[in-house]
């Protein structure tokens, strides 16, 4: 077996890369949430001065990347690769932002799991000796996601209790083989799982089995148990998916306790009318890179497992009656 593999699905990085800098920027709704102070920039509007929401999302990603590069004290040409993804067709936010930055670019799509996918892949590239520094970027935007997956913005549609609310913003991490602080130590890549949930208004339930599967294999591959982590996070299962995850894991003999939370539930307060919680690529990215990393730097947390979750559907696939496949990738952050 390849030297760095452990168990069935997990990779143990030999020289775990450091997260040397982060950039997080969010929109107005997230700015009203409990984590607002942890983000670098809270935009008071959805547009950032752009004409269309799609252009705005691209700007969100570009801004977050600039903040991260500035904090790292790097120029774009000093970064070897940019790995980025978002939710829009042909991942235009990422590619168009990459057009501005001029860093060798690899586009990713893992729906809302793209954050962990990017950090995992970036870490492998660095640990494999193919790069010194990699920039990982993801974005999502409430208005662009509504337009693509649901309905026009001003339409009179009532949000279902199971439906999530797409996080507006972007999270960027600069990974490097040198530095200090938080490192990416383990990566567990998930399989696509589909247990036949067809309701596009209930992504949480569609993704929960994939999250449970990835977490199960992570614990089994590494021989760890939930209590070995200071915190276990899922990306955007929300209120409903969280319940399903706990049930499915219980069936597999794993009980998640108080150290488990979901980024989609952390980013908004209960008073905000956001359905089942936050979702989108930016959800797990800004919560992890803004909030969790700050707490790791403070020494409050030293070992955190993040499993970003994604629903791999398209508007066409559900109109054609297909069910919603889910995926989850897990990364472990340690300092």
């Amino acid at each position: 077996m390849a030297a760095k593999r452990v168990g069935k699905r997990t990779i143990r990085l030999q020289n775990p890369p450091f997260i040397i800098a982060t950039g997080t920027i969010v929109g107005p709704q997230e700015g009203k949430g409990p984590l607002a102070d942890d983000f670098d920039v809270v935009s008071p509007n959805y547009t950032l001065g752009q004409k269309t929401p799609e252009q705005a999302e691209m700007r969100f990603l570009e801004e977050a990347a600039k903040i991260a590069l500035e904090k790292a004290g790097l120029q774009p040409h000093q970064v070897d690769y940019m790995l980025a993804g978002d939710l829009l067709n042909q991942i235009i936010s990422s590619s168009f932002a990459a057009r501005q930055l001029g860093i060798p670019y690899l586009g990713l799509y893992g729906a809302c799991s793209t954050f962990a996918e990017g950090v995992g892949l970036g870490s492998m590239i660095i640990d494999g000796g193919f790069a010194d520094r990699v920039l990982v970027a993801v974005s999502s935007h409430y208005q662009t996601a509504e337009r693509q997956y649901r309905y026009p913005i001003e339409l009179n549609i009532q949000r279902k209790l199971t439906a999530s609310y797409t996080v507006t913003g972007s999270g960027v991490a600069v990974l490097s083989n040198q530095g200090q602080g938080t490192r990416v130590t383990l990566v567990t890549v998930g399989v696509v799982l589909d247990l036949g949930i067809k309701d596009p208004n209930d992504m949480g339930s569609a993704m929960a089995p994939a999250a449970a599967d990835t977490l199960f294999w992570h614990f089994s591959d590494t021989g760890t148990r939930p209590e070995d982590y200071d915190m276990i996070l899922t990306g955007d299962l929300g209120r409903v998916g969280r319940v399903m995850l706990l049930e499915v894991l219980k069936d597999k003999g794993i009980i998640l306790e108080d150290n488990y939370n979901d980024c989609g539930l952390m980013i908004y307060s209960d008073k905000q009318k956001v359905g089942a919680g936050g979702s989108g690529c930016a959800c797990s990215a800004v919560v992890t890179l803004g909030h969790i990393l700050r707490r790791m730097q403070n020494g409050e947390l030293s070992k955190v497992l993040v499993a970003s979750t994604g629903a791999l559907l398209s508007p066409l696939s559900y109109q054609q009656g297909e069910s919603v496949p889910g995926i989850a990738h897990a990364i472990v952050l340690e300092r």
Partner: protein
Amino acid sequence: MANKLDEEQRKKDAYQRLVARKKPKPRGFRNFVVAFIVGGLICVVGQVVLSIFIARGMSQDQAAAPTLAVMIFIGALATGLGIYDYLGEFAGAGAAVPITGFSNTIVAAAMDFKREGYVLGMGAKMFLIAGPVLVFGIITAIFVGAIHLLTS
């Protein structure tokens, strides 16, 4: 092989039962009452408009079309002002079922797709949601009329 497929199906069925059991139930009573009140009030506004036309000497049949046009204007304006999506979030079908909601679907789509251009964006997608209502309404009406002609 057949066994494996059976097992997959059993797993799916079990999970779908779990989801059906555990997922939050809609607040049916609250939603019904709010939809009733808001929808009812919109109809009262419609009745005011209708009564004004009737007071000006129209029969109820004659007043129907202009009343709908006025309600459509009200719905369009409320959408432009950004009020109607809040009303929809609050009242669900109470905002969607009245003709003001029909008008909202047209204006919301027009506003949203304006950014993809006036012809291929706004023009092409204005009837994104209202289109099916027209298509099936018109087809039904023509069939109903044809049956009347054949049977009378």
